[in-house]
């Protein structure tokens, strides 16, 4: 053994300059310049916000100022639930801070099993597999399920994790126009009859907050002998009699083969999962690279998730309050004259549509300076070249907070000429 492996490697203080044409970082010059131009106008960087303190699911301190949070995915406000926090503390005390390994080797602890049991109960299914993030759940499920010579048929507005799952696999990828049932049917009809097919849908599309006509789309997929995967990340906890998602609300439970979900939204921690009634579902654990070749979630995370999921099952009051909040904000913004992503209050996401980046940033900045945080989203994340100020509601927002929020939108919208 030599000493070489024991000496900490250091980057040189004055690295030798790489010729621009050979510098791999040169490809980012345009991106760096665009960001700098935005900063130079004097605005706060919308993609570099720091929460200095978090006081509750709806309040934080940003740049020294008390701020109402209206741009998180903490739909059910579970992050500060006393039972959830206690479960995490107990797990830290009993099992330590991490698992140091893959689920497949040494990384499965009691609470990984417990959270998968909680998911089976919540969704009333026979199978549940937990991944380290929601992104990895899509990446793993799509790339593993659909192989060479088979087809993935996906909505054009699908989340990046769905597109990346397609790229990671070997299947043929076909897109259809967003939420267009006829377009899906037409494209399925052009594919080879005998090839395996997976149609991927989302209950709620997160940019505009619109929901999918799942009943019709699932019927078309079944007619064409395709299996169906629905990503219900933005609907867990508050759609359907048991809060399972849009697919439950629209009565498609028997026909959706795989449900993808996340712990980072309504559940209030981090992690992803897939649930299914397929009798061979467990085989995914043996074949899925994003499940096998990564460390499992820390014990405190799965313990908080399990407790949160068990509480979400009975969170009828929170569910009602969340819908009440979404409806009142949607109605208020509409009455003020803002252009919104959906005609009615379809989800817990309300997107205000603006036509140019300058006004979107100015509006976002005015709101932040007044003590309100919303998400700013821009192409390519957004559909059809739109700039969005996205509001996402929490069950813990109070009617008083919604009233304050509407006043802030009114003042910012009028001073910038967005509304009359």
């Amino acid at each position, binding site marked *: 053994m030599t000493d070489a492996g024991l000496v900490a490697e250091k980057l040189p203080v004055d690295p030798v300059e790489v010729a621009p044409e050979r510098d791999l970082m040169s490809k980012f010059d345009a991106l760096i310049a665009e960001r700098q131009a935005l900063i130079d106008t004097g605005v706060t960087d919308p993609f570099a916000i720091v929460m200095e303190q978090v006081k509750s699911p709806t309040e934080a301190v940003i740049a020294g100022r008390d701020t109402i949070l209206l741009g998180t995915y903490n739909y059910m406000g579970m992050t500060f639930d006393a039972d959830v926090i206690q479960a995490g503390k107990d797990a830290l005390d009993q099992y330590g801070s991490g698992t140091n390994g893959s689920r497949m080797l040494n990384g499965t602890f009691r609470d990984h099993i417990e959270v998968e049991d909680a998911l089976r109960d919540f969704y009333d299914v026979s199978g549940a597999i937990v991944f380290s993030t929601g992104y990895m759940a899509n990446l793993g499920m799509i790339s593993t399920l659909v192989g060479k010579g088979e087809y993935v048929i996906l909505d054009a507005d699908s989340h990046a994790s769905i597109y990346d799952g397609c790229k990671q696999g070997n299947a043929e*990828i*076909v897109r259809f126009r967003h939420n267009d049932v006829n377009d899906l049917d037409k494209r399925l009809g*052009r594919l080879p009859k005998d090839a395996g097919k997976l149609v991927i849908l989302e209950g709620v599309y997160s940019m505009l907050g619109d929901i999918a006509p799942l009943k019709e789309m699932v019927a078309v997929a079944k007619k064409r002998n395709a299996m169906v995967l629905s990503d219900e990340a933005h609907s867990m906890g508050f759609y359907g009699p048991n809060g399972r998602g849009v697919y439950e609300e629209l009565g498609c439970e028997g026909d959706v083969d795989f449900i993808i979900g996340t712990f980072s939204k309504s559940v209030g921690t981090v992690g992803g999962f897939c649930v299914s009634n397929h009798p061979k579902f467990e085989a995914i654990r043996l074949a899925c690279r994003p499940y096998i070749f990564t460390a499992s979630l820390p014990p405190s995370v799965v313990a908080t998730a399990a407790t949160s999921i068990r509480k979400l099952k009975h969170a009828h009051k929170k569910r009602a309050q969340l819908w009440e909040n979404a409806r009142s904000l949607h109605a208020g913004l509409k009455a003020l004259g803002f252009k919104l992503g959906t005609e009615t209050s379809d989800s817990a996401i309300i997107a205000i549509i603006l036509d140019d980046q300058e006004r979107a940033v100015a509006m976002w900045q005015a709101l932040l300076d007044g003590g309100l945080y919303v998400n700013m989203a821009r192409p*390519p994340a957004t*559909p*059809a070249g739109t700039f969005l100020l996205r509001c996402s509601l929490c069950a813990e927002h109070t009617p008083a907070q919604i009233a304050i929020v509407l006043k802030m939108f009114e003042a910012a919208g009028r001073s910038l000429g967005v509304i009359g």
Partner: protein
Amino acid sequence: MSDRQAIYDTVTAQIEPFNKKGVTLNDATTFQGDLEWDSLTVMDFVAAIEDEFDIIITMNMQAEIETVGQLVDAVAKLKG
């Protein structure tokens, strides 16, 4: 008129509504470089071509197609 010429004429006719810069088209015209299309335009255009010829151009195939000529050849092959 050959089959390829007929496909070429239909493809270029479909390009026109998206040809905002009025670029003169030939087999070597590139979608990204010459026509400067973004991913959303490509998506709309591909859907239009698919519907016109009643074919599917998978995203895997799209990744290999850079020029008008390559698209015409791909359509000819897919039409069989």
